[in-house]
């Protein structure tokens, strides 16, 4: 399962500076071209997993390998520039327009201007925002969905091998959300990144993930493909999947199997 281009957790634990255990012996591996969707209630430790990957946090125990190198050995700045990060609040810089927001990392990497400009157009096309209309807009002139798309484009700007997404579509209305999920699948099919996505919505996890991980109280308690999730008899998984998802025919009554 080890893939040098991806991300691997080996029995990783993380504790707050003073107190609670947030992650407890988590192991997982995600290769390039693969999307792992982590689901769980808030406080389950999903966001902590992401912050450990780009070294916003360091683990208490266990190893985290990004592209085969332990995050403790990575130069944090280099590591972060090769890991795209999309957060729910988006965090677009309000003093920069759309094009400049997308261009932040390429400029930090000192790309020549024409290459930056070409990359910005390419990404605006990729996320479905017409460059001529949107490049010069300001973040507060965008709708929630547009802002989220720009956030994704910004994370992808320097073509990082790893992409982290923390509730990327959480704040959007259901229609926009469906639309963006579709587009994400299309983009991922084209770019084949190693993607780790965090959501509290099992449906979204099953739509977007090649694999789904269920987290509870700092542990990865279940792990499998969306099909396996849909078929699972594990109560904790069933509770998340809910009645809306078609359940393959079974002999037992699922509710009473608890």
């Amino acid at each position, binding site marked *: 399962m080890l893939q040098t281009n991806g991300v691997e957790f080996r029995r990783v634990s993380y504790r707050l500076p003073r107190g609670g255990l947030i992650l407890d012996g988590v192991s997982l591996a995600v290769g390039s071209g693969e999307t792992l969707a982590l689901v769980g209630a808030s406080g389950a430790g999903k966001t902590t997993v992401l912050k450990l990957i780009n070294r916003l946090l360091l683990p208490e125990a266990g190893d985290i390998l990004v592209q085969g190198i332990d995050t403790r050995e990575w130069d944090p700045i280099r590591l*972060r520039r090769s*890991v795209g*990060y999309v957060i729910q*609040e988006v*965090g677009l810089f309000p003093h920069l*327009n759309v094009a400049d927001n997308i261009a932040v990392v390429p400029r*930090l990497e000192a790309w020549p201007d024409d290459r930056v400009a070409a990359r910005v157009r390419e990404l605006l096309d990729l996320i479905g925002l017409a460059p001529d209309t949107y490049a010069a807009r300001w973040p507060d002139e965008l709708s929630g969905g547009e802002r989220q798309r720009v956030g994704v484009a910004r994370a992808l700007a320097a073509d990082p091998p790893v992409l982290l997404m923390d509730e990327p579509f959480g704040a959007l209305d259901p229609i926009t959300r469906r639309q963006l999920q579709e587009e994400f699948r299309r983009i991922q099919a084209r770019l084949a990144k190693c993607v780790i996505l965090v959501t509290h919505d099992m449906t979204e996890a099953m739509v977007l993930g090649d694999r789904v991980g269920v987290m509870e109280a700092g542990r990865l308690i279940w792990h499998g493909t969306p099909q396996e999730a849909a078929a699972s008899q594990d109560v904790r998984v069933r509770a998340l999947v809910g009645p809306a998802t078609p359940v393959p025919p079974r002999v037992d009554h699922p509710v009473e199997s608890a």
Partner: protein
Amino acid sequence: MTAVVRFWLTHQSELATLIAEHVLLVVISTTIAAAIGLPLAIFATRHPRLASPLVAITSVVQTIPSLAMFGFLLPVPLIGGVGARAALTVLVFYGLLPIVRSTILGITGIDASIRTAGVAMGMTPGQLLRRVELPLALPAIVAGIRLAAVVGVGSATIAAAIGAGGLGQYIYRGLSMVDTTVILAGAVPAALLALVVDGSLLWLERHLSRRRRTKSRRTALVAAAAAVAVAVLGSAALAMRSEAAIVVGSKNFAEQLILGEIVAQTIERQTGLTVKRQLNLGGTLLCDRALTAGEIDVYVEYTGTALTAIFGRPAIEDPKAVLGQVRELYADSGRTLLAPLGYDNTFAILVRGADARAKNLHTIDDAARVTPEWRAGFGYEFMERPDGYPGLAKIYGLRFRSPPQVMDLTLSYRALASGQVDLIAGDATAGLINGLDLFQLEDNRRYFPAYEAVPVARAATLLRYPQVRAALEGLAGRISAADMREMNLAADVRHENPADIARRFLDRTP
């Protein structure tokens, strides 16, 4: 108001100079405060535990009255003393708080998700600061600078007390002449200046927060850069101005301003040396400390004042003995008392002319009979000095209806004339004695020591420029009490410029 306008029209070039000095003081001090305050505030945001003590310290500095701050700074080398440099130091101190506080608030107020995004994108702390934090905090920073500048315009008026120039000079001159026209001539432009500074920086602040118009943002930054350039050129100009060879000081009332001009013009006429005027310094002790510190080279002191107030010796009756002892005391501390100018500016116990005539009062003893029915008003200095009120009351057995009212010396003449008090202690050479029909009671028990006006200079200066000594000795005995009273009248009542009065006097008696 027409009187104020007329005053401006007749003092156009002086007004322009004072406004320029005022603007420079504010621009330079605010620029320095920003240059110190910004790094300080950024440091504080990196070490949050230091932020609140830092803000607390700058707040405490803010509460020190500016006059007290000037006092503290007098003996301090480099940043203290008198003149523009010390004024800048005080203004910088006052400007720090608003700049530090609003910069800290501007940076810490940035949405956490924006900062997280920056860090997660692989920005170094420096890149985060330059590309994200400072641009977003810029409107708040400019707001702090605006507050500092507006406060600076106000505080700079007080800087005139230590001879830093600026519009405060008119305010002080007006106060010492008890002339509201002159006070307004300084106060109105200072207020307008505050409004202009406030308005233009508010404009800058608004344009910086309207981020979508990059053009106006650029204009705003260019304007700011231009202001800084003015500050740099201004400081160069101020620095050049202090190249003068001889610095003449004076206290802050009309007679002293005129004497300062007489001394300055005499040196200019007879030696050709460049003279810098550091007139209008706060008071006796300020002048003395400025002379000791080498901030000024010469000023005119009164022998009795030097003996009792500066050297803390008991008063002596014999004027010759006073002069001799003061000369020795000065010589011991590297200063030289030159030849007396001629008149004796002793304290004058004054009553209204009408009262003197009606009650047939000639001496202080005469007045002691009626004072239990009277109120007295004395200056701060007179209440405190060893040769002031306590001794006077003892020798003459003076009693008043209520404890003497403490008031500004220069205001007390008007207070007497308008009947708010019935007896004051003024200067024997005050022009207002004639102007307001006041009567000087004779000091029949010879309580007051002699107050002969004598230039006192730094010995080192006289050694280096012997021609200055020769020039000033030439003034010996040249100014009579009548001359001085007339010159004071010209300044206090006719509002003539001290420089013009001095020039006329020197022309008339070559």
